[in-house]
């Protein structure tokens, strides 16, 4: 295999949040509650361990910055597709994009009043197998599987992946149109508006898998700023029979929420397992 392709596959494999121990990919907005007639937000996007510190890789987003300036390994990484939905349902484009060593940055001009949703979602297959002693991996679209993975691959395991990452930002009065879910993958349907979160209060969210309430989904909520403390401060919870979770925020700050669900039921061939994950950066204000 061409060294670059091998490097790419390995890099992709490392940088994906495949398990709880892998790096985290997140977007961090400069603010989520805005007032005034002409608000802007700046968003950082990175892949890193700590929250919310940039210390590993920048997130490559299509339309953000010039990827040709990056080293070979970064250039080869597949660019994430960012969708920014305005309160009226239209899409807006990121501006002033740049890719740095550890983070990508872009600005959003919020010309409408209401809630905006930033989303990066992708889905595909992940395959691992053995060729002799060597472990092989491949990730991509279902239609490319037959071409990329040998038909008689040994110890072949194919997983269906759905991943979604979201950030919510509100100018003026919050609106709810953007909160509508797509019905694909693991999603958060907010009961408490995500830009109305205050320390000491309980927020309620509903988790959906392919549009239906998802019970038994493991959710982890971690407050930012872990560089300056010993304990991770992780809040763990599981969605109930109705797919609901309730989180009482211990203090103000930025939080990272991650929900993961793995199942072998109802998985379409050639995949034998399905992994769906959802993550969001949520800002909690002081009362």
């Amino acid at each position, binding site marked *: 295999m061409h060294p670059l392709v091998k490097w790419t596959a390995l890099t992709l494999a490392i940088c994906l949040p495949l398990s709880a121990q892998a790096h985290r990919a997140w977007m961090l907005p400069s603010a989520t*509650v*805005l*007032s*005034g*007639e*002409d*608000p802007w937000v700046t968003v950082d996007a990175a892949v890193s361990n700590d929250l919310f510190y940039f210390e590993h890789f920048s997130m490559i987003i299509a339309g953000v910055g010039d990827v040709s300036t990056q080293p070979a390994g970064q250039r080869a990484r597949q660019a994430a597709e960012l969708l920014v939905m305005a309160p009226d349902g239209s899409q807006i484009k990121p501006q002033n994009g740049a890719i740095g060593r550890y983070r990508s940055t872009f600005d959003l001009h919020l010309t409408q009043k209401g809630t905006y949703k930033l989303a990066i979602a992708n889905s595909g297959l992940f395959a691992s197998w053995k060729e002799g002693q060597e472990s092989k991996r491949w990730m991509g679209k279902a239609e490319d599987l037959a071409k990329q993975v040998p038909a008689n691959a040994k110890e072949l395991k194919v997983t269906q992946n759905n991943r979604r990452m979201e950030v919510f930002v*509100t100018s*003026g*009065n*919050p609106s709810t149109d953007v909160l509508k879910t797509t019905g694909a993958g693991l999603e958060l349907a907010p009961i408490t508006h995500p830009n*109305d979160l*205050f320390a000491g209060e309980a927020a309620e969210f509903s988790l959906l898998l392919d549009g239906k309430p998802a019970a038994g989904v493991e959710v982890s909520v971690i407050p930012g700023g872990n560089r300056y403390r010993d304990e991770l401060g992780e809040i763990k919870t599981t969605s109930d029979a109705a797919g609901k979770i309730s989180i009482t925020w211990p203090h103000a700050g930025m939080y990272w929420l991650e929900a993961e669900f793995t199942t072998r039921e109802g998985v379409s061939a050639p995949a034998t397992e399905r992994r769906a994950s959802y993550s969001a950066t949520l800002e909690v*204000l*002081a*009362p």
Partner: protein
Amino acid sequence: MPKRLLLPLCVLLSTPVLAAELQLKVEIPRLQVAEYHRPYVAIWLEQPDQKHVANLAVWYDQKLKDKEGEKWLKDLRQWWRRSGRSLEMPIDGVSGATRAVGKQRLSLNSADAPLKQLEPGEYRLVVEAAREVGGRELLRLPFTWPPQQATTHNAQGSSELGQINLQLVP
């Protein structure tokens, strides 16, 4: 009707209804800081469960062009959440310029809004202040409306607000 009753009747009908009053004094404290900016202040009435009832005053920088002063209204976090974010500023009779250091006065009469429509019950007067390159402070004064007798309520701020005096006159 007998003529002798006419005069007393006239007096009865022309007796003016005395309006209750709410007199508020908000002290903007003198601070020893290198870069001083007058604070943004929001004053409102709420029910004990924090449900917003009425805005009494919002003092912010109205002089900046393109309404840029509104950018910092969200720093009045509770006011913004309970009321500000759903409003179009400025609001007649409520919006005002930032106030200087000293005891700032606010006077309301029950003959006018919002006291005119205020249902009898328990309320809280809330004063929230946020200062540029400074901090933020919020004070609440519970009171009963309408006042049966002249009452005074006081609160003392520790950083961005000084003394708050609320006088209710029936």
